[in-house]
């Protein structure tokens, strides 16, 4: 296996949890809800996903556990922000704290256990093709699912009526409400979807990436996913590009160090965040002109009049 091939495979693996969680959050934010609890939902997905896989011996069931855990936690968020109209930022932060604590409690009994990592695809001839074979046909299920997910989200948002309604709710909940669309119900579904994606992204870590569970193992990936949504300016295509870019920066800086290139590693570690800040600046300058910017109702609490 050549070095470049190995690097690309590592980049894809490093990007996948970010892509999964960020894709879910993109849909949530497109519906006008800002859920800052991604890190909490991811780590819950990691703990419950590992528990599921360890108990049943199946990566697939583990992944379902992870999705369910993310959904369950997002339901708490939905109850607070949609049901009780609580401030979304505060509720999201609280959700992360809750998720980190709860996952530690759930996962405590599983620390030190190990499982078989998710199997990788193997097609007799295709996987053997030099260079591209392993990259295209030798990944695990999470990787293929994450790519399909982004395509499906793009198709949903821009090619279906339901997607149009979701975007309308995110851009002007009052207008959507006046037209008779059930704003809160749509947002509830979006939040649940986002929770499931974050849970799956978290579950990827103990199920495929590093097959063991340790409290806090998401190590801030939820925050990077949130940054990624802003970086993408809420566009699915850019989200995928951004996820692979963030992953590439992480992996390439490690290789640059092993090569002894002498680039300061601290600077490289900060690059994804720096890129996000630059994009934020560009977005704020482009506001008003054409091009997608933040959903207009993002983060604003909606209370339907009776």
């Amino acid at each position, binding site marked *: 296996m050549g*070095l470049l091939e*190995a*690097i690309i495979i*590592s980049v894809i693996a*490093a990007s996948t*949890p970010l892509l999964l969680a960020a894709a879910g959050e993109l849909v949530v934010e497109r519906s006008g809800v800002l859920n800052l609890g991604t*890190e909490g939902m991811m780590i819950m997905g990691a703990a419950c996903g590992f528990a599921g896989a360890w108990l049943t011996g199946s990566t697939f069931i583990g992944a379902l556990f992870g999705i369910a855990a993310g959904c369950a936690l997002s339901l708490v968020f939905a109850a607070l922000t949609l049901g009780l109209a609580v401030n979304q930022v505060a509720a999201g*932060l609280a959700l*992360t*704290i809750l998720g*980190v*604590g709860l996952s*530690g409690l759930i*996962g*405590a009994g599983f*620390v*030190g256990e*190990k499982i078989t990592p998710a199997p990788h695809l193997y097609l007799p001839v295709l996987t053997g093709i030099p260079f591209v074979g392993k990259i295209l046909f030798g990944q695990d299920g999470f990787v293929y699912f994450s790519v399909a997910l982004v395509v499906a989200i793009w198709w949903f948002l821009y090619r279906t009526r339901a997607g149009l309604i979701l975007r309308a709710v995110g851009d002007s909940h009052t207008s959507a409400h006046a037209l008779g669309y059930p704003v809160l119900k749509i947002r509830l579904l979006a939040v649940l979807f986002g929770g499931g994606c974050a849970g799956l992204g978290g579950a990827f*870590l103990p199920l495929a*990436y*590093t*097959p*063991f569970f*340790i*409290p*806090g*193992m998401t*190590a*801030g*990936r939820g925050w990077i996913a949130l940054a990624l949504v802003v970086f993408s300016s809420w566009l699915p295509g850019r989200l995928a590009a951004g996820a692979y870019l963030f992953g590439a920066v*992480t*992996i390439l800086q*490690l*290789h640059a*160090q*092993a*090569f*002894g290139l*002498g680039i*300061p*590693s*601290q600077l490289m*570690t900060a690059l994804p965040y720096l890129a996000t800040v630059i994009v934020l600046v560009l977005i704020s300058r482009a506001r008003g002109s054409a091009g997608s910017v933040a959903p207009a109702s993002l983060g604003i609490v909606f209370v339907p009049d009776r």
Partner: protein
Amino acid sequence: MKKLMMTAAAAALAIVATGFSANAAEKLKIGFIYLGPVGDLGWTYMHEVGRQALVKELGDKIETTYLENVSEGPDSERSIEQLARTGHQLIFTTSFGYMDPTLKVAKKYPKIKFEHATGFKRAPNMGTYSGKFYEGRYIQGVIAGKMSKKGVLGYIASFPIPEVISGINATILGAQTVNPDIKLKVIWVNTWFDPGKEADAAKALADQGADVIMQHTDSPAAMQVAAQRGIFAFGQDSDMIKFGPKTQLTSIVNNWGPYYIRAAKAALDGSWKAGDTWDGLKEKMVLMAPYTNMPDDVKALAQKTEAAIVAGTLHPFKCPVLGQDGKAVECKGGANLDPGQILGMNFYVKGVDDKIPGK
């Protein structure tokens, strides 16, 4: 995030403390500040094992409390002070980054005894303790030098502090005794704990030809990567053989229990003094996990090296120590580098293929 959790935890502890104070008036209250979760299987886990040993030994005379996930730096001051305010008479702060906050709180509470791990600042009521981990690293270097077929070792480093740098130096000095041309590739991940990133670093090192991986980060992720790649690795802080039954060569095991018991006994009988404890293989603060997955001659060499270090006939930093530029480093300790030079080490020795970040 962590701050809020800590405050909540500290508040809960305060309630527990007042609730039990009536029964436990006689007991000495001992507090611990942990960097990671107790289940990290690495650094914090081993301090927790030490605390449990302490409770087992002196459980009828003491009462212990710990706060986990306390981030380093100024934020930790609140947590340390919280323990001080809730009646803890002896407080162990178990990470390098708690140094200045511990000193600050120690000055504020002169009657409370503080023990800070791996630091170098002291006060009349603040002592320090650390392990000579470089002794274990040297043995690992000898083993790695023998076991590497390609002559390339991979090292996952956390932060450029003296303890990490002296570990890297001791490793290559050990490896050079069996293979003078050995290469050591270093990757700084700028974190103590991020399993995903540790795995990424291990993959990068393996992809670039390293066939023995070692780390100064806390999770068993690198061990698992090495197992998948069919190369060798060393555990870190605790025996990680479970994560690489065919991969782990040995592991440095941090054995804090005896020290915690000693310090608590001294606090109980009034003989406690702020000291500077720096123990190694000889005093059993640093232990080596069983030597596994290596031929008998390498195992014998490792055991011989360990015995020589314990006996004091071999010192990893025996002079002359050559710096990266090939010039001998000033030798302040006579035959070996002075402890201060090791505890404050900020230079690489000859043969390390890297530049210390920020230098």
